[in-house]
């Protein structure tokens, strides 16, 4: 188990073979290319989208100006992602712990395999399933939520008769991000040093206490990275939302009514095909906003994590 040690300062020059140069160069090119691609996307969005900020008023119908057009979309994007995360994260952590710590290897391997398989299902298929099967199947649940928890703004109803609501979209998104978060969480849980776990057990901890004391603190940052990746997918997911959601340009926390805010990505997908150049510019400008929102959300999340980790370290 030799980990490459940092190069020792030696009087003689380190040997550099052609392979070293080629590999270092290739790695550098790869890193620069991805930065350039990202910059290229940003420049494209900025140039093409700029006219969309000040288009004739009728382009924004039924809103009046750019910010009132994009506002509900930003809200919808974040709401859908948050609903998806609230459902998916506990689920993923549970599945990952089951695979890494509870299940016998005979069962763990196939379960892990099936979860990975979920990641390969195209989002259009999730959209079809969500719109045609899940939406009607979930209606009784929404009726129940409305009757029993209707005093909460989330379930203020009245429940949609078709079931194509923000809650349904959130569930579909959650199923889509579970494979990513599970796969990464599973890997970091499995990396927990055996000694930590055994030490916890030796102190008389039960299995759950061992996981809480040894596994979670160790895996915290890895799990958060996993959640960030899932969040990224939820924010940008297009087809599944476009096919499931009954969308209107509104801002509402109500998750079960027939009136739901669209997400930026699904709005672009629904409207781009028939768009005039003015409208295209507007849609691209909303894409730019999504770019900024994703960046801001990631930045905020990293900041929160960084702070909590400093607290833990203290």
């Amino acid at each position, binding site marked *: 188990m030799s980990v490459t040690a940092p190069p020792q300062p030696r009087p003689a020059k380190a040997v550099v073979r052609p392979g070293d140069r080629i590999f270092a160069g290739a790695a550098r090119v790869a890193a620069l290319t991805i930065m350039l691609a990202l910059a290229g996307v940003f420049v494209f969005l900025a140039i093409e989208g700029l006219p969309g900020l000040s288009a004739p008023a009728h382009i924004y119908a039924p809103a009046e100006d750019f910010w009132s057009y994009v506002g509900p979309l930003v809200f919808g994007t974040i709401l859908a992602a948050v609903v998806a995360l609230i459902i998916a994260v506990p689920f993923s952590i549970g599945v990952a712990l089951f695979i890494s710590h509870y299940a016998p290897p005979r069962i763990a391997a196939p379960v892990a395999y099936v979860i990975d398989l979920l990641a390969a299902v195209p989002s259009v298929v999730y959209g079809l399933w969500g719109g045609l099967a899940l939406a009607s199947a979930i209606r009784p649940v929404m009726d129940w939520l409305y009757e029993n928890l209707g005093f909460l703004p989330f379930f203020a109803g009245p429940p949609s008769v078709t079931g194509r609501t923000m809650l349904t979209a959130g569930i579909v998104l959650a199923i889509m991000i579970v494979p990513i978060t599970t796969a990464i969480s599973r890997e970091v849980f499995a990396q927990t040093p055996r000694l930590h776990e055994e030490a916890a057990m030796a102190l008389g901890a039960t299995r759950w206490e061992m996981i809480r004391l040894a596994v979670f603190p160790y895996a915290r940052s890895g799990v958060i990275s996993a959640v960030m990746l899932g969040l990224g997918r939820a924010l940008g997911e297009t087809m599944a939302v476009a096919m499931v959601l009954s969308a209107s340009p509104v801002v509402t926390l109500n998750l079960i009514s*027939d009136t739901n805010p669209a997400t930026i990505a699904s709005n672009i997908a629904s409207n781009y095909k*028939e768009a005039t150049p003015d409208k295209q510019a507007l849609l691209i400008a909303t894409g730019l906003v999504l770019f900024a929102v994703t960046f801001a959300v990631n930045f905020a999340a990293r900041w929160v994590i960084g702070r909590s980790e400093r607290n833990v370290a203290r």
Partner: protein
Amino acid sequence: MIRTSIRRAVVPGIAALALALTGCGAANDDSGDNGGSTDSASAGASLSGELAGGGASSQESAQTAWRAGFQSANPDVTITYDAVGSGTGRENFISKAFSFAGSDSYLDDDEGQLSAAAERCGGEDAIEVPAYVSAIAIVFNLPGIDSLNLDAKTLAQIFDGKITTWDDPAIAALNDGVDLPGTKISPVHRSDDSGTTDNFTDYLSKAGDGAWSHDPDGVWPIKGGEAAEGTSGMVAAVKGGEGTIGYADESQAGGLGLVSVQVGKEFVAPSAEGAAKALAVSTPVEGRADVDMAMDIDRTTTESGAYPVLLASYLIACQTYDDAAEADLVKGFLSYIVSDEGQQAAAEQAGAAPLEASLAERAAGIVGAISAK
């Protein structure tokens, strides 16, 4: 053992396939001969080259049928139809990116497009002929009820959220003897910008007797309510809930309850023939050139059997083209589209309403005169 049984199946299978193919070939030959009686199609036999057009997505499935029909008669021709939407289609036609365009609304001078199109066509008026007509069915989902009679005013109130239950007196008054449930009405609209919405809201606004206060538009004017993307999404949403009502292309409305709309004193169910008839009795837009068949659809017609909730999509082209090959291709293809054969192909494969004879004849005359400079 298994292999032999497969072989046994394969031989007669291939034989059947060969028979079917020769059958098809023969049928194609026949139809080609029929088309050959008009001079445009006989000229078409020698056509070759590429033709680029595009525009309204409502025409997309019909264009697929037309392209297949025309290319089977003219194997050396490649036609593309890019369903980029009516607005972009018109702009690409004006910028010469497309040789012809499909559009759900006619050119007008609100944004200077009529003059721009004339300029693109070397100072001559652009050709506009109706090519794709389709009835918009108003569909609903109420168990046990297959059809309802409604007038435009009641429909406008339903879609505006003023009438909220199916047993509302306004609905009951039009439907004697129908046992209406007290189910809540959930109107469904298209979430995307669409020609169907444009035509439907045009109908509500013109025929609704003041009950519809919004302007006709491709984007649904009311915030909130059940929304679905595309015709298939609309149909799925209406099927997915009880008490829903929506509007969709008549060819896609299978299995749902259909609204018969009031025309004069009678109630007319959606049909291709009814739509073609309503278009035929519509008034031409004033001040247009002879080659411009732009029409304002008469939503308030009282003509017996006419169904005024329809979408008429136009083909836009020039009278003359600089390039002789381009002119021949546009003339050949557009002549095929407005011919009986082309209209039948669209009716079979896209559920379109074939143009009424008088309109088809005039359209054929116009596109038949396309020539090179």
